[in-house]
């Protein structure tokens, strides 16, 4: 596996098939925590961390625990039905870890996130990344899986930061009354997704 292919995987998941803007996963924090750029970057970092670690750990659990144990008892895929349960448990544990860490070392960020931090647990982008890694045959080696998960997190961070930047500016704009608040935000999200469609074809 060459270095170029890794770059291809990274760009593929960060730009072309961006989790948020092309896959429509993780919309909740994308709209909820994108009011200020610094908060958006913090959220992006937290999600990137959780996604990368969960991607690696779930990959390890599938390939080093579920498959060998299943194989020892005759059928390597016998325990695959446990995947969802285990994935969610891994993600929840990682979120707990991040929460404790932030609370200890970045209390202001911790208070700023509020309820959105525990909600990373149910961020579908993260479970989505784990399942995508598990689904596609080209991610059947750990390095590829790691790069994919990391790229997914970076893509999320990029999307939410751009969104926060636009929202900071839109505060000074004369938005029609009927579109104020969620309306204009969803419109902007849609336009951002359209813009990201321009990346289609990169890496071919």
């Amino acid at each position, binding site marked *: 596996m060459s270095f170029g292919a890794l770059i291809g995987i990274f760009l593929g998941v960060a730009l072309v098939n961006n989790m948020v803007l092309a896959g429509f996963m993780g919309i909740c924090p994308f709209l909820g925590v994108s009011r200020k750029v610094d908060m958006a970057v913090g959220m992006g970092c937290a999600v990137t961390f959780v996604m990368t670690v969960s991607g690696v750990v779930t990959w390890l659990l599938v390939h080093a625990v579920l498959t060998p144990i299943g194989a020892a*008892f005759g059928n390597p895929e*016998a*325990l695959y039905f446990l995947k969802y349960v285990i994935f969610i*448990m891994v993600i929840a*544990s990682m979120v*707990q*870890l991040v929460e*404790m*860490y932030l609370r200890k070392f970045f209390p202001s960020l911790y208070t700023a996130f509020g309820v959105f931090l525990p909600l990373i647990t149910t961020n579908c982008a993260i479970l989505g990344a784990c399942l995508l890694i598990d689904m596609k045959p080209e991610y059947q080696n750990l390095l590829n899986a790691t790069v994919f998960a990391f790229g997914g997190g970076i893509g999320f961070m990029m999307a939410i930061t751009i969104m926060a930047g636009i929202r900071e500016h839109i505060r000074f704009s*004369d938005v029609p009354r009927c579109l104020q608040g969620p309306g204009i935000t969803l419109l902007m999200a849609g336009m951002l997704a359209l813009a990201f469609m321009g990346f289609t074809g990169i890496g071919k």
Partner: protein
Amino acid sequence: MTLLLAAAVLFGITLVFATLLGIAKEKLRVEEDPRIPAVTEALPAANCGGCGFAGCADFAKAVVEQRVACDGCPVGGFKTAARIAEILGIEVVQSYPYRPVIHCGAKTGDKKGVVEYDGVRSCVEANVVGVTQGCIYGCLGFGDCVASCNYGAMRMEDGLPVIDYAKCTGCGACVRACPRNIIESIPFKQERMLVIACSNKEPARLVKQVCTVGCVGCKMCQKLLADMFQIKDNLAYIDYEHYAGEEDREKVIAKCPADAMVYFGKPKPEYAEMLRQEEAAASQPV
């Protein structure tokens, strides 16, 4: 067989993660005073920021650490202060609610030097441009304060914000929203308070050029009630620590040559009756 295996595997993995989290919790422990959540519980949970802190939890922390007084929550008022005092085991005395007033009385017709302004309809932007009207201290009238009010207690009327004190909680959002710092939170010792409705610090000649109701700094009020009124930078200020009685106040208002003093809060009973009749007359079918 598969079921037993699955249970065993799940149990094993769960055990590993539980142990990891347990160790992490010990390593990353944050010491917290048990009174902080108790005080947070006692607060109104509006998270309006009226106390000057980021939210109710932040304020609770500051109170428990005795950085601020326990009556700092303008929304909860005396009741909340008493409950916090009970938790902290201290005594509390009656305090006055703080409510915003506007230090500008220039309605649309009173302003001079108003120019056509086509820019962004917000005080923040207009204040940067700075040439929308003659007075560089007075209300710009684009209603940033009205937009900032979370309780629907403000509206624009004739170029000036009007506060509905029945709805106002004193959270101070409007005070922070005003780019010219015209809005101030003052202690409402009575239902209606006398306020200097001007912020112009220029000498009389220049004030007259831009406004018909601006304070000219004539010191008349200070001569009559030296305790209550101070003159600084050609502008009168009221010291609410020494708030004078009704009669003295009426005398000063009658003497003020600029009409720069107005009452904020509830109208007097006789005015209230008059207003009610006017409203009734207006609502009758023609």
